[in-house]
């Protein structure tokens, strides 16, 4: 699905696929992915502020602007205009958050609540479970981490670190 969102943003989606994609975009996860891709693209181009919260901005603009009823010349770049239609249909883009975190493989019942509390503000964008082995294996290689002795392991033992998130996909 993410590749389809990516192609949508590139204007590579044809009309037939558009309907399905637009209804998909109504889900929070797809919306978050869409927003996220824009943020990534902007960041790479060094213009991070432009589309931050673009959905909300477009929605506001739509409300503010009068509807033009005059007929329009056929758009040359049709896919691109489809893309903007998609943007307009995105009413409220939530901030992309992904706070899911996996430390240990056991999931004591008492932790489900803590994990939920930790991720309640997240947009539930494709949260992933990263094997704790990966995190520990990586941690020791960072020069900046070496400055802080075991300090960086705070990330691991912090009380609010959810032990196991819900896994999307």
């Amino acid at each position, binding site marked *: 699905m993410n590749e389809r969102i990516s192609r949508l943003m590139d204007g590579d989606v044809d009309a037939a696929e558009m309907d399905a994609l637009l209804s998909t975009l109504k889900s929070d996860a797809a919306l978050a992915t869409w927003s996220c*891709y824009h943020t990534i*693209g902007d960041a790479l181009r060094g213009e991070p502020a432009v589309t931050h919260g673009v959905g909300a901005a477009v929605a506001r603009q739509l409300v503010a602007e009068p509807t033009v009823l005059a007929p329009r010349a056929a758009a040359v770049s049709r896919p691109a205009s489809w893309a903007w239609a998609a943007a307009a249909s995105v009413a409220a883009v939530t901030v992309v958050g992904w706070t899911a975190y996996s430390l240990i493989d056991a999931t004591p019942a008492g932790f489900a609540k803590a994990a939920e509390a930790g991720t309640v503000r997240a947009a539930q964008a494709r949260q992933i479970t990263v094997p704790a082995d990966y995190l520990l294996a990586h941690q020791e290689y960072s020069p900046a981490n070496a400055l802080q002795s075991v300090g960086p392991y705070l990330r*691991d033992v912090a009380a609010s670190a959810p032990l196991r998130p819900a896994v999307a*996909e």
Partner: protein
Amino acid sequence: MQRVLRIPRFLSGRFAPAVFVLAIVATAARADDAAQWLARASQAARQLDYVGTIVYQSGPRVESSRITHLYQDQREFAKLVNLDGPAREVVRNDGELRCYYPDAKLMRVEPSTFRNVFPSLSVEQQQSLSRYYAFRVVGDDRVGGRPVEVVVFEPKDGLRYGHRFWSDGATGLLLKARVLNERGEPIEQFAFSDLTINARIDRAMVEPSWPVLPPDWKTLESAAGEVVQQATGWVVGRMPPGFEKIMEGFRKLRGRRERVAHLVYSDGLVSISVFIEPITGGATPAGFLQKGGLNVYSVRQDDYLITVMGETPGATVRQIAHSVVRR
């Protein structure tokens, strides 16, 4: 069979390599200063005896931990106890690292962790430091009642985070560290709220609170330390400039039959890990994760799961993940 990865156009646009060329040309002769500063702070963190309270902030969360650190017979011992919520702790006994989760009745052992001990920066890494970060001594300040020197590593491109460090004037020990995102906003911070350097610390103070594990606890022994360094057959097509490969090999991870390829890159300040594992069965986790200043991105490529993590912006780890190919 190898699939050609589609590179979305929205990621490219005006993102021109010229930016990096300019950054290289503009290189100042500060590499030694930055590397020396890092070496001093790292050595202090490893070789001093100290006890103090660390406040960790990430987003809206603020938590504190007690750290006790001892350097004895050229060996490093440390104990970190979480003061908020469950009394989880991390205990370092030289190379070995143990994480205790009393709330989950679980202990995780990392038998032999790699220790990135300064000065271990290669010449290339030192050059990267000055090419891709502007290192500046900002001035003097006070942290935890102690006079400190404030330095910044300001990224020269959007692919890295900014770092601000407060180091103890007398010893070089890092008293406060802040990670700044692309917009210069703090996303993670460690700071000592109180600290005693050169404290009298004995081994008992850095022993775990559970010297003998209660019978109902579970032990997870990680095999992450067992890495066989060799060529893995995988390469990163679009590694951001300045990141040099510092390790490549296969790891045997707990609970997995197949070995996992692990490649580590560093720009002298932070590192990026690339993990490639064969997918065995069913759904695979692909997506994002952010934990303070650490970003993770997972993507599936044919029968492999590629996971990239590093102390860099999410866009950076994503770019890398999508450019991993078979040699």
